[in-house]
């Protein structure tokens, strides 16, 4: 590049520098407004999740299984769009940047869609094609959770009964959604995925929700189908865990 070119470039730059930049300065009112909407939506998404739990546990409504994820993701999508349009200025920006973003989202959609299609239809594949997956995905012989349990029992020198008694005490007053299904046939395993109906089945069988759950006994039985212990008293504990 010659000196003359360089000077020409400098002149052009100086001209640009006189602020004919075309860069949008987003009004502070817009930025503050977007922040407030985002905060309100954050409260809304937490509130709807709690409300879903409330109407299921308290009133016994059977909410469809997709509701939780669809509501949460819809709110997140609105929030994400606001961030992209205003904080990231896509609304004011050159179209190419929005195009890059949209194409990426298209790729992500394909990625998720085909994975879900595959997984959602595993049940329709004949057994011999489906193959076997080692439950828990471990080389330890048994599942990782079972191994952790066995290790603890060995370490503390407990008997099986003593352990399960403690387990029951531990989970009596907690909304951890435990106490169901670990060994029953109606839960998903590595080789068999069960379609969700309502909220996660049996999630409210224990703890604070137990007294509202009509199907308490059913879940209780299902849980102990492995015969490890038969006298759990789920849900009879104190209700100190109203929130999370």
């Amino acid at each position: 590049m010659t000196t003359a070119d360089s000077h020409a470039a400098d002149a052009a730059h100086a001209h640009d520098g006189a602020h004919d930049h075309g860069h949008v300065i987003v009004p502070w009112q817009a930025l503050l407004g977007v922040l407030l909407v985002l905060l309100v939506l954050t409260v809304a998404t937490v509130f709807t999740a709690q409300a879903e739990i409330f109407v299921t546990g308290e009133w016994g409504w059977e909410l469809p299984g997709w509701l939780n994820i669809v509501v949460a993701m819809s709110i997140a999508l609105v929030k994400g769009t606001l961030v992209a349009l205003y904080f990231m200025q896509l609304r004011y920006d050159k179209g190419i940047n929005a195009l890059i973003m949209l194409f990426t989202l298209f790729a992500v959609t394909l990625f998720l869609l085909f994975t879900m299609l595959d997984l959602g239809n595993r049940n329709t594949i004949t057994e011999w094609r489906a193959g076997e997956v080692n439950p828990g995905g471990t080389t330890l012989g048994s599942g990782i959770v079972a191994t952790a349990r066995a290790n603890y029992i060995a370490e503390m020198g407990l008997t099986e009964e003593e352990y399960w008694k403690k387990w029951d005490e531990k989970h009596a007053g907690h909304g951890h959604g435990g106490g169901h299904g670990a060994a029953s046939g109606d839960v998903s395993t590595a080789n068999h995925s069960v379609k969700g109906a309502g909220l996660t089945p049996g999630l409210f069988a224990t703890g604070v929700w137990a007294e509202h759950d009509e199907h308490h006994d059913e879940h209780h039985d299902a849980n102990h189908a492995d015969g490890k212990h038969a006298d759990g008293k789920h849900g009879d504990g104190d209700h100190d865990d109203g929130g999370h």
Partner: protein
Amino acid sequence: MATITGPNQSPAGGPLELERPALERWKTHKHGHHWRNAEDEFDAAKIGIWLFLSTEILLFSGMFCAYAVFRMLYPESIAAGSQYLDPRWGGTNTVVLLISSWTMAMAIRDVQLNRQFWATVNLLITLVCAAGFLAIKFTFEYIPKWGEGKRPGTLFSYPWATHDHEHVWWSIYYAATGIHAFHVIVGMGLIAWLLYRQRIRKAYGPTHYTMMEGVGLYWHIVDLVWIFLFPLLYLVH
């Protein structure tokens, strides 16, 4: 001081010390010679950042996909695992990141308007929020959960699990939030670097703030990912 040379030198040869109390580097920025003008340089840099951000989205989409797969396979374990987390802390962290995203956008606005003091203030708030996010994450989640044996994969040793695949939940949780937290740490480094260049070097102003724009976009994508991670991890049932 008479020996000072440079684009800011007064052509009239007046008392330079008074005319130029501090070198404002954003005024002297020259675009690369392979660009027609500063505008092209800025736009190209921004496209580059957006391409990088698209790879970031693809990186996180792998984790979202893993989450979807395991949620479909083991809905009970995922729901049970989620209930070990406190949505109040997750919600607080969401608010903290949203505010930091806002102050980042405001810092860029301040620089565009050459309000250097407020740009510094907003960058500092952004940095403090990022640190607060990590502090909450480690104090109330990573450290106590890990200590209880709620660990990913074969490291799992929590004896009171209620479902057979809770270790899978913790694998997803640590992978997703861990990579996100790593992005927050990187973002803190970038923002600290911006603060240094903005405050000490006076590198950014109305005609040149490319780096701030780039770091800002990166910081918003960190916020954006958390907007999706928060409900997926904390509000599952």
